[in-house]
């Protein structure tokens, strides 16, 4: 079904491209124009600044073309640039990679152990999913587990089977630090089991005020692309959380990533995510 849609779209775009293509006379005129412009190029191939940077050997070749005086200046410049890069590397390593005005740059917590998804956990999730599927007989579309509570996505009627790919589990852990606190604490976490290309929106009624949405897509080489949207920071304040929609992130299965750092109302947040495909025998 999707393949058919893709084929139709591709055909439509190719048709559009053929319709938009200029006629032969236009192309011939363009060809002549470029040929004439090329004639006026003087000393093509010896002009240092003109070498496209696409060639990996370009910088080496550029240097070979330089006169001796320039080589000497280049050497001093290179030394200066190297010193500047070294200073920048030292500075960046001290500040951390997420340093920004509106992000908690200092003392970022390392990836917490609970973000990781090991094989036993995945097998347990797969078993739980299989059991729930049996109970709800084709009406279960997704499942989430947060701090021991299970949230189920159940449709009123039996749903068609998804595309045959294995369910994907997304673990999201929010670490937070309130103003004046020295240590980071786990604020909220959720494991969400979804099917390929299924949008799941979660707003757990646990007083956290958190809102989440996930959309995952399995890539042919085993990587998993995930869109995440989340709202944080409304706990007990009578306000709607500010949603942060993240651009698509690519995940290697079972490799945790810090996907967001932010500061809102004085509280700092770090959000971690791990994604994996559930084992085949149970999915």
């Amino acid at each position: 079904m999707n393949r058919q849609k893709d084929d139709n779209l591709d055909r439509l775009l190719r048709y559009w491209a053929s319709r938009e293509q200029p006629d032969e006379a236009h192309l011939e005129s363009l060809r002549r124009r470029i040929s004439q412009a090329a004639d006026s190029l003087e000393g093509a191939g010896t002009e240092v600044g003109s070498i496209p940077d696409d060639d990996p050997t370009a910088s080496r070749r550029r240097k070979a073309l330089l006169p001796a005086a320039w080589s000497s200046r280049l050497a001093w410049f290179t030394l200066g640039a190297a010193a500047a890069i070294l200073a920048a590397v030292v500075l960046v390593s001290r500040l951390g990679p997420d340093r920004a005005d509106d992000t908690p740059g200092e003392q970022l917590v390392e990836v917490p152990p609970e973000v990781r998804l090991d094989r036993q956990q995945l097998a347990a999730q797969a078993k739980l999913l299989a059991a729930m599927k049996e109970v709800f007989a084709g009406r279960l579309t997704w499942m989430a587990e947060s701090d021991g509570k299970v949230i189920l996505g159940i449709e009123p009627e039996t749903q068609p089977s998804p595309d045959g790919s294995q369910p994907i589990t997304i673990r999201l852990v929010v670490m937070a630090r309130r103003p004046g606190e020295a240590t980071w604490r786990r604020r909220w976490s959720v494991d969400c089991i979804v099917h390929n290309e299924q949008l799941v929106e979660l707003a757990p009624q646990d007083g956290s005020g958190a809102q989440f949405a996930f959309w995952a897509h399995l890539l042919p080489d085993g990587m998993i692309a995930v869109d995440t949207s989340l709202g944080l920071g409304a706990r007990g304040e009578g306000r709607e959380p500010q949603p942060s929609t993240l651009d698509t992130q690519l995940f290697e299965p079972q490799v945790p990533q810090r996907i967001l750092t932010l500061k809102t109302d004085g509280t700092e947040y770090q959000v971690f995510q791990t994604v994996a495909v559930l084992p085949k025998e149970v999915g």
Partner: protein
Amino acid sequence: MQPTAAPEKSDEGLVDSYQRTRRKQDLDVLLGRYVGRLQGMIYAMVLNQSDADDLTQEVFLRAIRGLPQFAGQSRFSTWLYRVAVNTTHRFLERRAGSPVDGAAVPPEPAGPGSDQPDRKAMQAEMNHQITAALAELSPSLRAAMVLVVLEGMSAKEAARIEECSRATMYWRVHRARKILTQRLAKYLSP
């Protein structure tokens, strides 16, 4: 005995010949081979014919200047497309924020003398909608669609040109298809 035509030189053969002899004819053959393809590819990215012509010229001049140093580490076509894509991305960065001309101009109604005015008007409207839908994509998504779908490249080759991973290229194509499918649903028959 019939005279046999000399075999056509490959791109790499022409480049090699140009590197040794600086013969203008070699450039002209390469220009003839690629001018239409590059203009079409660049047009699909910038969605304006005049800009596409100017950029095509800029790409060829940049390529000609760099040709003596072309090391043959990749195919000539890959190298040329990479110059084209980089040049086009830089242009799009400069143009960021400006409306895309092609998408902003509504289609012209068919003239009174037209034999099939309704059909032509519908076709013009469809072309306009497709242009507008492409204009809504980010440059990287648009480039992915152009390279993989319109130019027929493999994800691996397109990724090499765009200097991203193959997985990223798959994802960009998937994402772009999803957006375009929604936007152009009425033209996609089941």
